[in-house]
């Protein structure tokens, strides 16, 4: 206890130096915490935004082979799928049915290619929470032919809410079809993927695709959070495999993933790829009935370099951490060398009075520990304040990087283990940096120390 008090007193004796040294450590922790928190927030928002915009985190699609050999994407009877989902005991937030097609929107001689997704709007709460509207309202989707188009698409078409537009598409079996929509709302683009999708009513999209009542193309499963998607998907896959014919998940791994090829053709739009890639599955094999494919949000986003972006940010955070730690270690080591030089006489006196070598070493290490932990806690407190302030900044839902934001604002996600790890790492490295000067101090001959000091 006495050692603690002496160490604390020693730090207190040189307030300015202790403050500067602790401040350096605090700044390092601040930088690391901010970057980690920001990356964590980006990852969380990205997953959340994508899962809502894509209407799911785990997706099941059905593929039929017609008598003529044409592949048709449809789920006509989902009882087995629903049973498998129930049986998997997943933490469900929602199950959304959707159908979609890549069509050409036309308005007064101008056209724009667009992925159009049909949803049951009574169940589309998760989407409407994340899709911000610039014009119009979701309530107007009561209009069976209503459509929500993105700002960029509306601008390209020179259309506004209330305008009627035509869409040219191909039905499930490749027949030409034309639909008529009314733009009821214009959404901000979530960016990263231009003109992500236009949203319409499932019943009308089904009619245009020549799907029957109650049929659809994709079953999207929203889990409680973005964590554990792959585990949940595997559990569901195992449950499905016993009930219905399912495409092997391994076959859709990155090396052979048709999503990759499709994304290249669809300007890296994961929404477009969702509805196009399945048709390439199955190779030359033939089957009867419907075969199902299960894939996840991670499978989709892995193809648009988002994890790579996140990895790059995390790598940057680690690099900053490394640089900060090296600077702090060098600074701390040098400062303690000076401190020990200044206290040579004091150390000699303590040793002459019977203080053990190990006690001298521990005293100096304790000072370093107080300094590092104090600095780290101050850094965490400062980063909490800064994060709070940055959360107040509204970048707008139309910001270029809005897919990384929540309602146009930054969010920070820092796990307690990560914060503790940072503190522990800084403390450990500070102790390592101080260990050698402390050992040298402990090895001082009391007589020599007193002579030098005099």
């Amino acid at each position, binding site marked *: 206890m006495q050692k603690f008090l002496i160490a604390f007193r020693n730090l207190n004796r040189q307030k300015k130096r202790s403050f500067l040294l602790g401040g350096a450590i605090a700044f390092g922790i601040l930088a690391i915490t901010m970057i980690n928190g920001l990356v964590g927030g980006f990852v969380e928002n990205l997953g959340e935004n994508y899962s809502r915009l894509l209407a799911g985190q785990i997706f099941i699609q059905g593929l039929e082979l*017609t008598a*003529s*050999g*044409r592949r048709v994407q449809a789920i006509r009877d989902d009882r087995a799928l629903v049973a498998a989902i129930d049986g998997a005991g997943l933490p469900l937030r929602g199950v959304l049915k959707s159908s979609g097609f890549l069509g050409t929107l*036309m308005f007064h*001689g101008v*056209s724009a290619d667009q992925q159009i997704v049909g949803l049951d709007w009574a169940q589309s709460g998760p989407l409407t929470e994340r899709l911000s509207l610039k014009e119009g309202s979701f309530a107007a989707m009561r209009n069976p032919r209503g459509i929500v188009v993105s700002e960029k698409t509306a601008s390209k078409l020179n259309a506004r809410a209330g305008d009627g537009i*035509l869409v*040219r598409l*191909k*039905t499930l*079996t*490749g*027949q*030409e*079809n*034309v*639909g008529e929509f009314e733009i009821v709302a214009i959404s901000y683009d979530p960016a990263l993927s231009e003109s992500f999708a236009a949203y319409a009513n499932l019943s009308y999209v089904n009619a*245009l695709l*020549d799907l029957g009542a109650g049929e659809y193309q994709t079953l999207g499963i929203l889990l409680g959070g973005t964590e554990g998607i792959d585990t949940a998907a595997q559990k569901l896959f195992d449950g499905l495999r016993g009930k219905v014919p399912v495409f092997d998940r391994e076959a859709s791994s990155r090396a052979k993933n048709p999503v990759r090829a499709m994304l290249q053709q669809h300007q890296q739009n994961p929404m477009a790829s969702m509805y196009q890639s399945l048709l390439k599955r199955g190779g030359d094999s033939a089957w009867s009935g419907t075969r199902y494919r299960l894939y996840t949000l991670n499978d989709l986003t892995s193809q648009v370099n988002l994890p790579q972006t996140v990895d790059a940010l995390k790598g940057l955070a680690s690099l900053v951490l490394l640089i900060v730690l090296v600077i702090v270690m060098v600074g701390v080591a040098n400062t303690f060398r000076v401190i020990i030089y200044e206290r040579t006489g004091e150390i000699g006196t303590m040793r002459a009075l019977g203080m053990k070598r190990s006690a001298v070493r521990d005293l100096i290490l304790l000072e370093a520990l107080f300094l590092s932990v104090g600095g780290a806690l101050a850094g965490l407190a400062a980063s909490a304040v800064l994060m709070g302030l940055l959360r107040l900044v509204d970048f707008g839902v139309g910001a270029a990087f809005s897919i990384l934001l929540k309602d146009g604002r930054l969010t920070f996600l820092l796990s307690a283990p990560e914060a503790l790890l940072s503190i522990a790492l800084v403390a450990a490295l500070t102790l390592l940096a101080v260990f050698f000067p402390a050992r040298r101090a402990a090895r001082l001959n009391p007589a020599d120390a007193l002579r030098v000091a005099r």
Partner: protein
Amino acid sequence: MIGTRRGAVAALALSLATSIAWADPDFPAMLKRVDDITNFTSDFAAVYSMVSERPGEEPKEFEAQVFRRDRDDKLVILILAPDSQKGQGYLEVDKNLWFYDPQSRLFSHASLKDNFQSTDAMNSDFYRTTLARDYEVKSWREGNLGSNQVYILDVKGRNNEVAFPNRRLWLHKELGMILKAEDYSLSMRLMRTAYYPNYVKIGDRYIASRALLVDELNKGDKTQLTLKEPSTAALPDSTFTKAYLERVSR
């Protein structure tokens, strides 16, 4: 008694004559005739010149060499112009249409139902016709198209895999070829009107030497096709291969 018999015979003859006069023409045979007179039993080759017009844009000109072997359902389209697309080609074999891009030297899947390049023509416009197999007549009437007497047939796809589920055809009453066609979507919206004002006779077959394809959704969009250098000379089997497209595009 004899008078009564004569009356009955006369009534029967009149009834028969009336029923023959008012009977529907044999539509399956009529559609088959269209196929028969436009599809070749021999190989067929020709060059198509195309001019595609869109409002507010410079007309785009294309030229394509077409090879057909209708008896085997084979087709090759090789783009000769413009320079930016020169060497690109299509190959229909084994019910698969392949598109070849000489830049990447890769083949990719395409569909006969897709538009040819950025024109109003579809890839299937260069292919043999299969009207009798794919469509059935739902209603008909007689009429005139210019100075030609025509049958106007409303046809519907027999399956859900034909590009246009509904069509209206103007067939030359005497010669049987299509003079005009309106293509409707599944939702019965008019999408395209095709005019075939001129035919050229090659052997006992007729092929449209000029066609005007009008996009009815994008007003003002149209493409004109002109046939040149038609030939029914035998083509080497190697023409209908991927290797051929790769070789000629070098």
